[in-house]
């Protein structure tokens, strides 16, 4: 009895093992396991990140609760912390950056993909990819030495005299502030918009253009009414990639935003962003509540990025379905 089971026990496992080895040596199983591990590591890293931010901010969460989002005081001396001016600054500068970068970037991408001769397009695309790789501190220096003086002496006064009746363009203009930060961010994210949009436009099948032209469309009509809508999801993707970069940008913004945690309607006024205050104050922060509040700001930035990316996802899916219904 026992001899029979051992005999079967001895016979069966080797064959199973051999099958496993055969699958292993064929490579599929290994590739599957390795890529699965890598894929899972993304979830793991994100999960650990949130967990760490959550645990390390416990003191601030208990002390301030939801009030953290509504308080606009940031006082390390008396231990009173609120995130509102930083959230405001982050959203305003990112929005300004997209407002400037998207039309410019999309226009450039359309030119490069549709109108420019192929060799010029390739050469320029190479330069644009190079721009995307420039370290942000370089853009910050560019901001300090070029954009800030122009803002103070030329663009600021011009905006004041022409659009000064709007609350956005009132008050003293120091050269540093929301608008300057938005412009510098725009310069930084334009390469992303151009590079990705161009690639997407180039993948639009030739038949689409030819069909439009065959129906009597001009070249511009074919581009604007057929090619661009076809590539809409990819173009939106480039915009949200740019937004993600703008939200998290630290160095360049710190150098030109004025670093004053106040909420003001004027775009000339100095402001502050979440990423900037963390970079500025973390290394010298003393006291548990102070450090926990800075970590909580990190969590807020994570949430902000998460929510905005979620909205972007829904938006892309919705427009893709609409596009699908058209065709």
């Amino acid at each position: 009895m026992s001899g029979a089971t051992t005999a079967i026990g001895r016979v069966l496992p080797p064959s199973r093992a051999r099958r496993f080895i055969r699958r292993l040596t064929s490579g599929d199983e290994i590739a599957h396991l390795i890529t699965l591990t890598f894929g899972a590591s993304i979830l793991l890293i994100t999960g650990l990140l949130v967990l760490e931010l959550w645990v390390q901010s416990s003191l601030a969460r208990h002390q301030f609760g939801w009030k953290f989002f509504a308080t606009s005081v940031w006082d390390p001396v008396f231990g009173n912390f609120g995130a509102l001016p930083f959230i405001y600054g982050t959203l305003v500068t990112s929005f300004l950056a997209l407002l400037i970068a998207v039309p410019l970037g999309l226009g450039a991408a359309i030119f490069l993909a549709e109108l420019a001769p192929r060799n010029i397009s390739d050469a320029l695309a190479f330069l644009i990819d190079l721009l995307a790789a420039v370290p942000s501190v370089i853009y910050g220096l560019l901001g300090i030495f070029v954009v800030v003086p122009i803002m103070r002496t030329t663009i600021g006064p011009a905006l004041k005299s022409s659009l000064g009746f709007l609350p956005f363009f009132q008050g003293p203009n120091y050269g540093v502030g929301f608008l300057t930060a938005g412009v510098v961010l725009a310069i930084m994210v334009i390469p992303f918009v151009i590079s990705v949009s161009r690639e997407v436009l180039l993948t639009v099948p030739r038949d689409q253009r030819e069909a439009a032209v065959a129906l009597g469309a001009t070249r511009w009509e074919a581009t604007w009414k057929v090619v661009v809508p076809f590539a809409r999801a990819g173009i939106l993707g480039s915009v949200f990639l740019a937004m993600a970069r703008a939200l998290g940008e630290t160095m360049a913004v710190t150098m030109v935003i004025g670093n004053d945690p106040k909420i003001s309607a004027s775009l000339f006024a100095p402001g502050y962003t979440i990423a900037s205050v963390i970079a500025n104050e973390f290394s010298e922060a003393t006291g548990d509540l102070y450090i926990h509040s800075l970590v909580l700001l990190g969590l807020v930035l994570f949430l902000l990025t998460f929510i905005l990316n979620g909205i972007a996802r829904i938006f892309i899916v919705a427009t893709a379905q609409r596009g699908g219904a058209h065709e």
Partner: protein
Amino acid sequence: MTRKAVTVGLSLVLVLSLMLISLPSAQATDPVLINAAGATFPYPIYSKWFDDFHKANPGVQINYASVGSGAGIGQLQAGTVDFGASDMPMTDEQLAQAKVKVLHFPTVLGAAVVTYNLPGVSTELKFTQKALAGIYLGTITRWNDPAIAKANPGVSLPNADIVVVHRSDGSGTTFIWTDFLGKASSDWASKVGAKSSVNWPVGLGGKGNEGVSGLVKQTPNSIGYVELIYAVQNKMSYGWVQNAAGKFIKADLASVSAAAAGAAKTMPDDFRVSITNAPGATAYPISSFTWLLIPVQIQNAAKRDAIKLFLNWMVTSGQGSVEALSYAQLPKAVQAKELKAISLVH
């Protein structure tokens, strides 16, 4: 099969050779390795000191990470470094939180100076303490305010808004500056207080000394503060500040050392003392020590001896190389007091 055998053989060779490589280093006698972390302001002199000290004593190597005073205190509290360094003394609360009992040893002196950009004014301006506090509180908003004008007879100050600039990053310089303003004005002490970052009533924030000086240089009618060393190395002009004796003093190495000498008489035994607004007719009022934070008890005898040897060397021969890097030296009285305190480390 043969391929498999080759692979196994190769990996065996690899493992064996790795073991062989790692063996000799484990057998060699290790130098005493000491890890420290903290303030960025004294980093240039610390790295020179640790380098010089290593040349004189090859058996000791001190690694210093200039991660900032706050992080330095944190790492010392957690016990992850052998000693720390800070631009501000640890508070009683911080000392209580530390796993080990900590001693403060002043190393060098630094100062903050007032820099400004007033088109048409080329003379070096004089600032009373009330004027500086008022400007940074936002109660003095124009350059021709009597509080500024009275101290500068004969200078035609413009009727222009003052653009206030401060550091945006947490820094020891901001601590010295706000500590001084707190002594100059009770309003400042109660409303703003002193720390490496504060809730500024007015002003723009620039990142680092270069950020502040850049903003001041570019913005007409602005005022800011930077480290003395930064001002000296960049040949910037800066203002005179009224000291506790009522005299206007220009910051330089001598007047900063004088502030330390003025405070030396009343120096507490733990060296945790603010020397802003120090007594003495020649003392510059916005000066400060920077400290090494040494655990009282060091279990590892080799490390303890090395650290004590370094402290002795730093207070005596180390001070000789300080002024070349624009730091002010410790006054003799403080050096003598520190030499005595070193014996407390056990």
